[in-house]
Structure formats: C-alpha cells, structure tokens
C-alpha cells in the first residue's frame, strides 16, 4: 500500500514536470523574437525603433558598469560629478555590478538584454569584445553621427578608429586608454648585475641569460593564465610587427606562417626564464617580484604603474618612478602602442536615448576624460588632453599615444571576439603543458578558422 502511494507521487511529479516543461516553451518564444540566424557582420539596421520617450527633460540616465572599486569607481564618480553639474535635472543611476572582473556584470547584462531591458549605456572593453558579442547580435547603435558631430574622427588617433569599428561604423566611445606592451624593469637590479636595458628582442634575451647566469633564478616575472596570454600577444606583436599582427586578427594574415612559428619559439624561450610558481600568482604578485628585486623584468599592462606608484595606504607599493622601477615598450614593439580601453555604448532600444547620447558626449569630451583618467591611472583617448594632470609614466604614455601606430590587445578584448579569445586562452593552456610549438600553431590556425574571421 505504502509502496503504491510513493510510486503515485513520483509519477505525478514526472507528469507535472513534463506538462510544465511543454508549457514553458511557447512563453519563452516571443521574447527574443525570431531565432536570428548568425547575423554575421551585417551592421544592425538603425531603423529598429529605439523606444524613445518624448524628448525627456528630467528623467533618468542608467549607466551600467563593473566599476565598483579602486581608481575605476573613483574615476566614474568624478564623471558623475560633472554630469550632475551639467544636467542637474537628469538623475544619474549608477547600475554597477561587482565581482569577477566583469564576469558577473556581463552575465547580468546578458539577462537584461534578452529580457529587452537594456541600460541606457554600459561599459565594455572596446573592440571585438563588444563588437563580437553585442554588435553582431544587433544590440548596439552605430555612432557615426556622434563621432562626426564631436570631431572625434580627428581628435582620436587615426589608427584607433578601425579597431573600434565594424564595417566602418564606430560602436563605442573610449573613455580611457591603457597600454598592454609595456616591459617593467627594476633599474637597480640591472645596475647591480651590470646588465644593459634591452633595445630589441635579441638583447632582451641576452639580458635575461646574463641575469640567470649570474644566479638570478627567474629574471622574468609572470603570473596566472591571462597574464601568460598577455605576454604571448606582446611577443607575437614584437616578432611579426604591427601590420602582420593586424592582418592575423583581421583574418587576412596566415596563422601558419613561419613568422608565427618564430613568435611561438620566442615566447617558449622566454618561458624558460620565468618563476616556477607563475600559474598561482596574480599580476600584482608578479609585479611585486620586480619591485622586490626577485625578478628584473615583467610584461604587464600600464595599470601596473598604479600599483608601483600608488601610495602604500591604498595597498600599493609607493615606489619612485625611474628610480625604483622603470619601463619601456616590450623590446621589438617600439613605436607601436598596443592598446585596450574601456568604452561606453548606445544600445538599441535605450529607454533614455537622449540622455545616453549626452552621456557619450561627456565620455568623449576633454573635460570628461581629463576628470576620469588621472584618477583611474590611464590616459585619455584624445590627443589634446591636459598633460599637467598626469604622472610621469602617464605623460610618457601620452607622448607615445600621440605618435605611435595603434594596435589592439588580445587578452583585453580588442582584437578577437569572445569565443575566439577564450579558445586561444585554452590553446595557450595546452601549450604550457608540453611546449609543443607545432601543436600550438596548429591549434591557432584551427581556432581562427572555427571561431575567428579566417573561416569566412
């Protein structure tokens, strides 16, 4: 008797589950509209009605980001202060989501977008991380008019524009610029071991070899997975040069080329000089090895300057630039500025479109960028910003930004769409298991064909 009733309940659960599952399907259908076949690279038609509210004076502006701490949050606050001064009648809603270096925020954003409830503007890494996800999904508006009206085509570096555009249309407004191809070194260590500052890739290897021969266990400091990919992309750039580098990401270059083999060989050589515990260190840990003199060199983006230079109370090292630490472009990449950037976008269907456009204008303005960047520890995307506001490193970066060739970073979302970038990270992970150069190159060729532009 008892047995029967249990069977009965189980049967009921299963039946109701089936019923519910079948009911659930139709209700899901209307939300994302037609199951769009891969939209490929077609720019989203701007005619999609951007549910505008009648020209709102008053009202709101909701800006979404993952800037909840440190210099980023302080920089955003500085921009909000300007906003409140300029548009006191439009309430600024700061919809920042904490956690996971943006992973949490992106998941929340994806949910909101699929529910048809986009924030009025959101922050993302400029380039393919935005384009490969949101532009191909038809979720962003092109910003051609805004760029023309504000003179941004002239005031941003010429080589930057194509990297943040799809089919000739820019899709985001960069508020800050970071540089990826920076080699940080400890001048005291180099002096102590009587090693010259490298001038090209070969002399860098010579310097590393000399340090190792003199008893320094790991002259090149390295950290966890993404910092390894970061090292790889700078070495790739140093080996093949900016034109071939851009071609590889555009799908017109050949990943099977001997120059790429050479780049992989070069990074393999570098990996023989790194600390054994690299896989478990954060980027700060790796930078600190250089500051402490346990290593001489570290390749890291220029946010490392904030860590070296920032005051000790803020958890930074409080070092003196050019004395305790110094920098140069990664040897072989002189004259090239490998950038990454946080930028803001205009979603299709923004509830407060007019306010969002005003926000983007502020993001691209001299006033906005010079408020944000000195606090965040980055430079402005504009070539005309006020140098006196920035520290020693940043001033040197601004000089380079104004004259260098600009190329994009892989590890920070500029050059490869999210699927492709994730796959390359996986391929790299396989490479560091056995350092099989040929297998890694084959994997890179396959990744570009499967997930990048090479298959098109």
């Amino acid at each position, binding site marked *: 008797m008892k047995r029967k009733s249990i069977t009965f309940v189980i049967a009921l659960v299963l039946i109701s589950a089936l019923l519910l599952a079948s009911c*659930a399907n139709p209700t899901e259908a209307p939300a994302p509209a037609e199951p769009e076949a891969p939209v490929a690279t077609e720019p989203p038609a701007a005619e999609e009605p951007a549910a505008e509210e009648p020209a709102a004076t008053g009202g709101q502006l909701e800006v979404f980001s993952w800037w909840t701490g440190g210099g980023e949050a302080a920089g955003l606050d500085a921009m909000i202060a300007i906003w409140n001064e300029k548009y006191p009648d439009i309430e600024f809603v700061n919809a920042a989501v904490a956690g996971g270096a943006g992973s949490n925020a992106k998941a929340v954003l994806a949910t909101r977008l699929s529910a048809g409830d986009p924030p009025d503007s959101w922050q993302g890494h400029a380039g393919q991380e935005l384009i490969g996800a949101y532009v191909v999904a038809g979720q962003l508006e092109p910003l051609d008019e805004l760029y023309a009206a504000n003179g941004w085509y002239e005031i941003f570096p010429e080589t930057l524009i194509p990297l943040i555009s799809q089919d000739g249309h820019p899709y985001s407004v960069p508020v800050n610029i970071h540089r990826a191809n920076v080699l940080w070194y400890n001048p005291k260590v180099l002096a102590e071991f009587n090693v010259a500052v490298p001038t090209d890739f070969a002399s860098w290897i010579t310097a590393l070899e000399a340090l190792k021969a003199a008893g320094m266990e790991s002259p090149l400091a390295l950290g966890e997975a993404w910092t390894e990919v970061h090292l790889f992309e700078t070495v790739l750039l140093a080996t093949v040069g900016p034109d071939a580098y851009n071609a590889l990401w555009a799908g017109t270059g050949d990943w099977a080329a001997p120059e790429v083999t050479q780049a992989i060989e070069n990074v393999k050589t570098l990996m023989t000089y790194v600390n054994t515990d690299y896989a478990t260190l954060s980027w700060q840990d790796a930078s600190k090895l250089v500051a402490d003199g346990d290593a001489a060199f570290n390749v890291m983006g220029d946010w490392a300057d904030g860590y070296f230079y920032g005051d000790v109370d803020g958890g930074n090292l409080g070092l003196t630039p050019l004395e305790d630490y110094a920098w140069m472009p990664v040897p072989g990449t002189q004259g090239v500025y490998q950038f990454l950037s946080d930028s803001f976008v205009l979603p299709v269907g923004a509830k407060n479109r007019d306010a969002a456009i005003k926000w983007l204008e502020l993001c691209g303005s001299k006033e906005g960028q010079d408020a944000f960047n000195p606090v965040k520890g980055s430079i402005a995307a504009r070539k005309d910003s006020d140098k006196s506001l920035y520290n020693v490193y940043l001033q040197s970066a601004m000089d380079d930004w104004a004259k260098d060739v600009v190329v994009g970073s892989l590890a920070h979302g500029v050059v490869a769409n999210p699927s492709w970038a994730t796959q390359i990270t996986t391929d790299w992970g396989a490479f560091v*298991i056995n350092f099989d150069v040929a297998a890694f190159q084959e994997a890179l060729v396959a990744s570009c064909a499967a997930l990048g532009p090479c298959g098109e």
Partner: protein
Amino acid sequence: MQDRKEKGFAFLMVLPSIIAVGIFVYGFIGWTTRVSFSAWRGMNPDYTFVGFKNYIDLFVNNLRFQIDIKNTLIFTLVFVLGCLIIGLFSALLLDQGLKGESFFRSLFIFPMAISYIVTGVVWRWLMNPASGSRMSGLNLLFDKLGLDFLINSWTSTPTWGIAFLAIPAIWQLSGYTMAMYLAGLRAIPDELREAARVDGASELNIFHYIVLPLLRPVTLSAMVILGHMSLKTFDLVIATVGKQLVLDMPSVHMWQITFDGLQYGTGAAISILLLIFTAVLIIPYLFFSLRKEVTQ
C-alpha cells in the same frame, strides 16, 4: 473514506513544492537539454537543432574535455578514498572512549563549516610551489624541519598536479566522513562484539568480520555524497589554482565557455553531461535506499 480525504489534503500541501521543483529543476533541465542540442553561440538565442553535434565535438578531438575527464577521475579517486580512510581511522580512534571526545569531534568537523573559497585561498598559500629564497607555505615548513624530501611543486606537478588539489578537499570533508562513521559505529550493538569476544575472536577479527561489514551502508552513503560533490567541484578549483587548463574541471570549462566564450550550446552540453555523470552515481543509490525504506 477518511483516509482518502486525508491523502487529498496531504497532496494539496505538497503541491506548491511539486510545482516549484517541476519548473525550477525539471523545467530548466529540459531547457538546458534543448540548448545543448542547439547551435547557440553569441548573445542572441539560436535554437537551430544540430543533434548531438555539441556532445560529439566534446568527445572527439577536444583536448580540454579530455583533460577535464582525466582530472575529474584522479581528483574523485584521491578525494573519496582519502576522506574514507582518514574519516574511518579518526572515527575508530574517537570511538575508543577517550577523554575529551566531544572536543576532538568538533575540532575535526569544524573545517566543514568553512566555505570552499576560504579553504582554497588558504591552501593556495600553503601549497605555494616557489623555490629558493621565495619559498613559502608548507615547503618552507618542511625546509625548516629538515624534511627536504617532502618539498614538492604541489599542484604544479606535471600530470598528477590535480591530485594535490584533493588535499584541501580532504582536509575539509574528512571530518564529516568521520561523523558519519562515528554514527555508524555507535549503532553497532555491543552484544555483537561481546559475543565475538566470547567466541575467541581477536580485535582485528572483530573489526574485519563484524564492524566493517556493518559499516558498509555508511561507506556507500559517504561515497555517493563525496563522489557527487567532487564531480561538481568549482569554487575550490577557482580559489586554489585559478583557470589553468592543466588543472581544468568540467564545471570550470562550462563556466568559461558559456559566459566568457558565449558558446551556450557547448556549455549546456557540458552541464547535461555533468548531470548524467552525477545521476549515474546517485540514482542507483536512491533507488536502493528507497526500496529499503519501503520494505521496512
């Protein structure tokens, strides 16, 4: 008549949870299954049916998934065996009626109250593989104690690094296994042991022929509980070793390929496979324990 009325009422009482479980568990399992058969990649849902393609791609020529499976097997084996052996051993010790038993019992169980994230961060420091002047954590301790042969590169060890990741997991859950065994030991009636002693059995024989067989259901329960936990391990991996391919687990793969790589179809296929692996472990157990309850 009365009986039927009561039953109807009872059914009404459980109906809300049946509906909730139906939607939030079974409904979403169905939903994920559907996504796993689709070509969905990118921000827009794309339900184009591609059959078992996502599954086949995982098993054929996908180096990362092969690493996942290898790592899961090694981790599960070391973790479950470690917990069972240490748990049983400490339960036997505590069962000897020593003074301050409750103190030690609590002490051994406490690690379970800590979240995996905290355990992971602490053990990340303890198992630091740096050498030379930067040596730290356990390696430094071994060095100072003159136990140099114990110094090793922990999770950075080639091939078997994942086995070291089981150490923090064992540390955290062997106390829980001990509690299960202790309850099992307490349930063995003293008369059985005494009867065996009267018959002239040695303590070792008693343990082998009486205690161990009677503990078998506990071992089975512990294996199932620990086994399904190890299949789903995620936070411990992330906190201890981060996202290294060589120490990858299916759950980390699923998370990265879905939310970083936007390959929803593949991510859903991995989650369904995880569900199947777990079900293979749990359903027979549920079936047997349910049948036992019914016959009792």
